[in-house]
């Protein structure tokens, strides 16, 4: 599991909400980073999609943060970004210069799958019933997100039949 120093078995609701908030924050920041990469490398379609994902992940983050604030006010956080690793953030190796919208959606899909798998793996270990309920809710949300991404992929025009290697001009020596 891509977390360090977090005792999932004995997680409190406050820590669980903070963890969930950080997962969304990490995903938001990664999409922001990927959008910047696409901008620098002149790939506007994927850039626009990643920027949309930035807004979506940030919306989720704000909602979770609001819940946390309502329940626990400004009580000190005990979890931080150093403790989580790419739970919902897309992997760096999923992006390419000139990537298509379909490939960008596929990157998002793999991130939603990762996040879903995280909550599925964590649930059997969680003892606190409130945390269990929260994780079940988040797991189900990831299912909805996967369905949304799949629906978006289905709306795209069909993928080109020409293999990518046939149109790529790099690397020169291969």
């Amino acid at each position, binding site marked *: 599991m*891509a977390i360090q120093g977090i005792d999932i078995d004995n997680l409190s609701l406050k820590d669980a909400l903070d963890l969930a908030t950080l997962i969304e924050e990490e995903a938001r920041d990664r999409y922001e980073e990927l959008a910047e990469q*696409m901008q*620098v490398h002149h790939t506007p379609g994927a850039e626009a999609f990643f920027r949309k994902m930035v807004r979506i992940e940030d919306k989720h983050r704000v909602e979770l943060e609001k819940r946390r604030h309502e329940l626990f006010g400004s009580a000190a956080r005990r979890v*931080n970004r*150093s403790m989580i690793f790419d739970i919902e953030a897309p992997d760096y*190796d999923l*992006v390419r*210069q000139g990537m298509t919208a379909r490939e960008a959606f596929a990157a998002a899909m793999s991130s939603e799958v990762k996040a879903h798998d995280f909550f599925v793996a964590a649930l059997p270990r969680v003892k606190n019933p409130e945390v269990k309920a929260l994780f079940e809710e988040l797991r189900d949300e990831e299912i909805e997100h996967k369905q949304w991404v799949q629906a978006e992929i289905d709306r795209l025009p069909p993928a080109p039949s020409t293999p990518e290697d046939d149109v790529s001009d790099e690397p*020169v020596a291969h």
Partner: protein
Amino acid sequence: MDTQLPVLQPKDFKSDLKPIWCPGCGDYGVVQALYRALSAIGRPPHEIAFISGIGCSSRIPGYTTAYGFNTVHGRSLPIAQGIKLANPDLLVLCAGGDGDGFSIGGGHLPHAIRRNIDITYIVMDNQVYGLTKGQLSPTAAKGRKTVTSVYGSIERPINPLLQVLSYGAGFVAQSTPADMPGLSAIIEEAIRFPGFAFVNVQSPCVTYGEEHQQMKAQKATMKSLSKLGHDPSDFLKALEWATHYGQELHTGVFYRTPTPGPTYEAQIAERKAALSKNALPRERILELFQTR
């Protein structure tokens, strides 16, 4: 859970400069792992000097908020050593690619190691000169086809792990951005090591690298040395594992000396203290050179 939160967060080490590495490059993961390691170390950016050579990976100091110096090709280690000697209180990091470190700057590596200066040297090893569009680098496998070896390389590659172990480095590790938690932990451990620490990062080149070198392949094949039961204090076993370089991707600490020796800068300070007892004052020395 009683974890003490670090005062500095990874984002505190991220500069405003946007990386221009190719999308999909392994170096994105390396810099993220570095931010995390530095936040765990807890030294503020102004107490860190980050020195690099030339190449794609040598851009890395610019993407941190530490003091940075993107020097000349292959010369990051001499400059980093000078900085450490001039200001031993600085945390000095050094970085570059395999061409920068083992070819152009290859002559500097044994001397930095034998001096045991307290520097962490991170090499982003991708077996190719990526910045100049894919020439054969010193760690490229025999038979590798590139723009400068169109029929396949006829040279044997350098084994950097064996090299640094044989030079006497007290800390030798290898990791990959395909294992972010592992990479971050190794960089942190290397920085904490009191002496010269070497971290070889198998950071794939997405543009000129081969399929089997990419992160997807690494995730499927990498093997953790600790899970294989390796004892990092066992030097001979470390040498044996190092011989697998190029065939298998082993991650973790190959060697950590159980008895770290004195650092060069500590010995210099000691020597200065000893000699200064009988040293002439500066004015008296200058007087000796005055013409009568």
